[in-house]
């Protein structure tokens, strides 16, 4: 149907973003493909090598999955910051990704966790990394005749991954002014083997920071200090290209993304049992 109707057709998942876009005439589809009843896309699967989250998983469902894996606990904590309890029963993980708001809450975590988006189209499925998934404000790698099927979060085979997400908000119901997420993998040898970072609301897309990640990778967990993490966060923050809008100034966003990343890194290390000096 998407292919048949071309750009006039759009997916309707929870509809929480769509309703607003439609009202504000940001979109004007003539056909809405309602995928709310596609139960095959509503699942959370915890495997040995990956966690798979179906695109139609409601934020409320993700919220309740906290007990199943500590990474799901991290994501569950994020959903608690999002929307309102009522809206979370409608809003979906796929919708949050595909809406591609630079301030979305799950996206920086998926980028930090190095998740993969599985996209389904007429020729089967294809995969892109969460980082490559976001192309611009409200623009993703999903083509007109495709849909997002699921998000896959890889789990390390030879160690453990822990992550954290921090955001600046104003009241209990708010869009992040700026946010940051970190995921740290520590090998069985106690050495940090992989660091993922996600920076939100400081560019049209969710940013990562390979140079900052590299600055921490290879360090032994026992050697990580607060100063070291501050240094990593500072490197990462240099990637930010924030703007000024009614919510916050560019300068504030620039300063805060560094604070958010530093705190997220500190949480991730602490979650590993690391003692920060």
């Amino acid at each position: 149907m998407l292919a048949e109707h071309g750009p006039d057709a759009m997916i309707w998942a929870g509809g929480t973003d769509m309703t607003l876009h439609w009202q504000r005439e940001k979109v004007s589809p003539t056909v809405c493909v309602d995928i709310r009843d596609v139960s095959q896309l509503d699942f959370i699967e915890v495997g040995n090598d990956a966690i798979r989250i179906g695109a139609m998983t409601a934020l409320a469902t993700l919220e309740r999955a906290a007990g199943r894996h500590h990474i799901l606990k991290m994501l569950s904590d994020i959903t608690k910051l999002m929307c309102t309890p009522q809206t979370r029963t409608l809003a979906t993980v796929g919708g949050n990704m595909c809406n591609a708001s630079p301030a979305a809450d799950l996206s920086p975590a998926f980028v930090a966790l190095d998740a993969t988006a599985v996209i389904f189209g007429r020729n089967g499925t294809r995969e892109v990394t969460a980082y490559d998934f976001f192309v611009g404000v409200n623009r993703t790698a999903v083509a007109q005749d495709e849909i997002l099927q699921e998000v896959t979060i890889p789990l390390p085979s030879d160690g453990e991954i822990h992550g954290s997400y921090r955001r600046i908000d104003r009241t209990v119901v708010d869009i992040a002014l700026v946010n940051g997420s970190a995921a740290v993998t520590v090998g069985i040898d106690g050495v940090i083997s992989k660091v993922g970072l996600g920076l939100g609301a400081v560019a049209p897309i969710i940013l990562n920071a390979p140079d900052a990640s590299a600055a921490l990778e290879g360090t032994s967990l026992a050697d990580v200090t607060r100063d070291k993490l501050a240094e990593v966060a500072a490197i990462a923050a240099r990637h930010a290209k924030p703007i000024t809008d009614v919510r916050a100034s560019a300068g504030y966003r620039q300063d805060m993304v560094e604070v958010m990343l530093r705190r997220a890194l500190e949480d991730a290390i602490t979650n590993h049992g690391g003692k920060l000096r």
Partner: protein
Amino acid sequence: MAKHDKNIGKGLKVVGHGLHVKDAVEKVTGTIRYGVDYEVQNMVHGRIIRCPHPHARITRIDASKAEDVPGFIGILTHDDVPQNDWEAAWFNYRGKVLDGVGRFVGDDMAAVAATTPEAAEKAAELVEIDYELLPAVFCMEEARKDGAPQIRDEGNERDPYGVAWGDVAVGKAAADHTVDCDIFYESQQYAPLGRNACIAEWMGDRVNVITSSQTPSELRDGIHEALGIPLSKIRVQALPSGSSFGQWWSNNFMMIAVLLARKVGKAVKIELDNEECMATVKRRHQERTRGSMGCTAEGELTYFEFDHLIDNGGYGFKDDVGFFCVDMWGKNGHGDYQIHGINTNMVTAGCMRGVGDCTLGASVERMADQLAEKVGIDPVRFRIKNQIVAGDELRMQHSRHNIKGAVDEYIKNVPEHLRKDWPELFKLSAGGTRALLELGSEHFGWDQRWKGWATPTHSDGSIRRGIGVGTGAHVCGVEFEGASNAMVRMNPDGSAKVHAAVGRQGAGAETTQAMVVAEELGLPLDQVAIETGDTDSCPWNHGSLASSTMYRTGWASREAARDVKRQLLAIAAKEFFDNVDPDELDVDDGEVVHRDPAKHNQRIRFADVLSELRSETLGQTSSITGSPRVPMPPSTTFARQFGAQFAEVEVDVETGQIKLLDFLCVQDSGTVVNPQVLKNQIIGAAICGSGFAIYEEMIFDQETGALENGNLLDYKLLRCADFPHDAEVLFVEDPDPVGPFGARGAGESPIAAGIAAVAQAVHNAIGVWVDMPMTPERVVAAIKAERDRHT
């Protein structure tokens, strides 16, 4: 003079009890109907065409394209509008309904009617209007200057409003410490969760207007002024408004609905969308205080000197805002306040809950705190030292115009014998902050928690906690615009109906007015119903504003009930109690009884008395109506309400985020008529005040003055979960000598107290004063500026 009876509100049957509000079930089940929910048969829909420019004059209107929209019915332009000025209560609006000039982006320019809201919207878009652009001004300071673009025929600036007493030069000489201030306040938006709509329906030359309003009588007056038709031909049926805080009084869009309906000859409904509610109706003023204050080495205030600007936007016409901080800090012998009302090319500004108290009052609180810090006295003691208690003089009697003059005139017209029971004028009749501060600081554990000025109570990493206290005062309504009246009717079955045009804005007035009447008439509450919105059945009333409802309308409702009771007992005495003096009788639980059951032990149902009335008057009268029979004393000269609030906040000095951890509100509103209702008022005020202190701010485009955050995503209101769920409210009940059963006003002092408490707590946590709203960004900037100052 009336003696001050401290037990006036004690041991009553209805008053003082936390009864459920009358509309609780309607609200919970969603059956209550607000303005937007209402419809009348065959009505059509109106849409207002808004000015895209900050200041412009219409040169041409072409509706030909709009006429092609299916369902289009007609258009109203300034050519159809009588060129009369109309005024809303307290000069919240003064101007013509439409005059072909737009004075801010979003101003009302014309309106179309069509069969559906969608068609009306489409047609409105297709009306072509050419404008001659006029120079615009957005800043108060600029608008005052010679040669500034003139927004109104009367000029941009009102005559200064002043209050002065003592001799400031003497006060300055006596000061050991002084502080100066220059503080700017951003506009707060009423941010109503409920929007509004207005339906106007003409029947011949009479018009019926259905809308949500807190001021039904003032709305009728406004229509009368705008159209020049007799008041008797205008009926306003005011519906509940939901939280209004002063927004839904009488608004220009209501006038447009009336005129559009007349033009197209059909009932018209105009419904505002969220953005229109926020960007085109009104707002709290932007304000700026400059001034100085001084005190002795012992911490006794010696003088106040303030120059305060308020921005009226396009159509506000106010020259004064809350001078109640003047009264509250009245131990001080010398003062001079000047207030200047200035028009700008921004959306109209008017009274919002705690007008002036939230701004000028907050400036005074901050400066007082700075003096207390210099002297080294803690804020509770500093307030106790310098704030008034019952019997002290109210400084506003020294007002340079208006109050003293208007009151003298009012008094002159009241015969001597009716004045003998009045409290002493120009002195506080009851209450004060001292008892609040004493009770509150004990309950809050102030002495144990206070670590000194600018000293956090706790600090850990980037977290700093601090405590603060703030105080607020307000009048309990005013008499200058007319005396609020109420009527009570007892029906043949003995039930009673109150007619008091105070609207229903969620503050519980429909319940508390009925409680007062039930108490006076000895009826259970469910026998008393109330009409709050229909101007055809209610006498003139100022409405729910200026914290007047419980006090001034409550007084009128009680007096009206007294009048009913007097008539009822007179008939009962004659017909059932052997012509005893009616004063020997009383009412109890729907029955007339003798005060001394030994003399007469019969109990006569009200219905039986009413039935007797009918035969007595040959069927000409079958119910009793009552109205106040004496004038109300000019309460502005003696009655005040007070609030003191204590707060603990947590500030993240890295991010600037503020969390509210603990809140205690102590309130003196005299006798508490309904503790549940009043608790809601106080907590609501503390939340609204905290929002003003930390987030709420209307952001205007620098070039056009257009509102940029006219939505609830970017206009941040505190949610319940942002406020401590275990916040407490304590009451100090110093009964008022005039108010119903000793009650006074309540709505506005608590918002001022909360703002000051949060501001001070933040200062104590981080050691810097931050201008409001203390957004994360401003907090960080203030901390950085302070650090830079020291390096």
